[in-house]
């Protein structure tokens, strides 16, 4: 079949501008597709790194409600729970709303020990425990804003009003590269004090002796606080993050809808191109058939041309997405730990390109097969 390649190439390049524009629209749409799908895979991969050996306990009604800090002692006594530490979402603004990163007020004594995957020196941990306005930041955040130990960071509180000053006492290094380090932790006693000892916290982290019993223990925890003033909902860290992500809106559904819309739109564009190209060449196809090309061969040539265009578009679009996001270190402003176009995404993009090629080549191929030589040759003979 390689003998037909020069013919297919020449046919495809007949109307160079149209072919280039069609390929360009395919490149853009498949680039977008890869980007959108990478949003999903990146979120999913950040969940992969979440632990199942830790449980998160929060108010059953909503994440925005708080519960008594005194729950800690009762939680720590539940069999199977090794330790419990509170963490409260602070939600402050650093200079500008666009500089989004997570901030938590945490139990200064117990919290750090529950997350050994973030490496800190003993001195850093010690300072954090002692200094009221100390904060620890993750490596990525430090890189992003050029923060160093001893720097002062000022946050404007949104949930907890006021101006909050912190001093960086340590920079946490992740044990594995996929861990998120785009955050700031500060001493929870400072929050409590400035809130007039209100004694409320957002969530508790529970460290388990045996991760395989996570389900049972979560049920026991929630049963313990059932019918109290602040009922709880307990789930693994992983499930918690999943819920947190879906709180941001049903991203996945939106992304799939967008992706499909793009694919359909581009499908119509390339379909139109193939039809135009084939209609202009009705006579040529009739000549080929007169020369002895049978219907199968003619259909093959028409489909090959359309596949050539969509596959080249797909290859360029998907390849570009891979290269751009690999070399630009894009993280969506820190929202993603890493933003990498996976092999699966590349394969899906090429699958779409293949599908588009077949679909847009189908009508012209069918017309070519049905074409009656005499009718096509009769006019302007």
């Amino acid at each position, binding site marked *: 079949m390689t003998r037909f390649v020069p013919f297919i190439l020449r046919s495809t390049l007949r109307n160079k501008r149209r072919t280039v524009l069609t390929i360009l629209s395919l490149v853009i749409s498949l680039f977008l597709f890869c980007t959108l799908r990478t949003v999903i895979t990146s979120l999913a991969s950040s969940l992969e790194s979440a632990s199942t050996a830790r449980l998160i306990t929060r108010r059953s009604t909503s994440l925005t409600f708080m519960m008594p800090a005194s729950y800690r002692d009762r939680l720590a006594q539940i069999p199977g729970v090794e330790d419990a530490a509170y963490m409260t979402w602070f939600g402050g603004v650093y200079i500008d709303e666009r500089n989004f990163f997570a901030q938590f007020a945490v139990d200064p004594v117990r919290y750090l020990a529950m997350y050994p995957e973030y490496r800190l020196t003993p001195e850093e941990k010690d300072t954090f425990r002692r200094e009221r306005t100390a904060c620890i930041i993750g490596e990525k955040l430090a890189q992003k804003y050029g923060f160093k130990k001893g720097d002062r960071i000022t946050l404007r509180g949104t949930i907890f009003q006021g101006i909050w000053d912190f001093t960086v006492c340590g920079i946490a290094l992740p044990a594995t590269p996929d861990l998120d380090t785009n955050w700031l932790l500060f001493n929870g006693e400072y929050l409590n004090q400035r809130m007039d000892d209100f004694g409320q916290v957002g969530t508790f982290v529970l460290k388990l002796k045996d991760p395989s019993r996570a389900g049972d223990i979560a049920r026991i925890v929630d049963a313990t606080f059932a019918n109290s003033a602040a009922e709880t909902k307990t789930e693994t860290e992983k499930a918690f993050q999943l819920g947190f992500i879906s709180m941001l809106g049903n991203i996945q559904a939106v992304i799939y809808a967008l992706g499909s819309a793009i694919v359909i739109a581009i499908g119509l564009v390339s379909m139109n191109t193939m039809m135009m190209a084939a209609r202009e060449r009705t006579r040529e196809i009739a000549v080929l058939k007169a020369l*002895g090309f049978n219907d199968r061969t003619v259909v093959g040539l028409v489909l090959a041309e359309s596949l050539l265009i969509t596959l080249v578009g797909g290859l360029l679009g998907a390849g570009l997405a891979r290269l751009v996001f690999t070399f630009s270190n894009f993280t969506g402003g820190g929202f993603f730990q890493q933003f990498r176009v996976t092999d699966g995404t590349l394969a899906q993009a090429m699958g779409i390109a293949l599908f588009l090629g077949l679909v847009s080549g189908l009508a012209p191929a069918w017309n070519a097969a049905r074409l009656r030589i005499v009718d096509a040759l009769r006019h302007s003979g």
Partner: protein
Amino acid sequence: MDSPTGGRPIIALRGVSKTYKRDTIEVPVLAQLDLDVAEGEFLALMGPSGSGKSTILNLVSGIDSPTAGRVVVAGVDLGSLDQAALAAFRARHVGFIFQSYNLIPVLTAFQNVELPLLLTGLDRRQRKQHVLDVLGIVGLHGRSEHYPRQLSGGQEQRVAIARAIVSDPSLLVADEPTGDLDAASATEILDLLGRLNREFGKSVVMVTHDPRAAERAHRVLHLDKGVLVESVQRDRP
């Protein structure tokens, strides 16, 4: 099946009728037509516009089928062939020469001539040899890399003739091959067709309006109102 000029028939039409349907109106073009063309014969078909000359060519070359009757070409009853077999029949037995050349504009002369060979089992080297051979026969040796738009009408028609003969068919069908050409180019093309007939033994059926073109043929048939009338019969050399 004897033909008027003797020899084996390359074409035999028996009781062939052709009626076109336009919406509900039936247009009868050929009715109960018999025609024999001997192998190696050069036949010219003349007649008024719309008399059905092209229709006859379409039938014998297997790109159209009769409403009734039998069409036998090179010993093959075309009525018995399906689409793919008819395509194979055309590739093997028929060389087409059109009034407007019908070359593919994005292909070079070489590539245009090579097209029919893509359907054969010949490898690249063999195909190249054949293409260069026939381009030599039509006198276009130096033009193989030219595109149709870079050639004169007469040269384009010679490329088309090269394409028609490259797979060595026994029958050439030509529908007003000189219709778009000036007198000098027309003479060249007719000389070439005559040579292909004499030296290479190709049977030629040519439709023409030009009496001077018809003079090249062994036999001239006039088609009028569905009836074939023989007007000239020359001895074959």
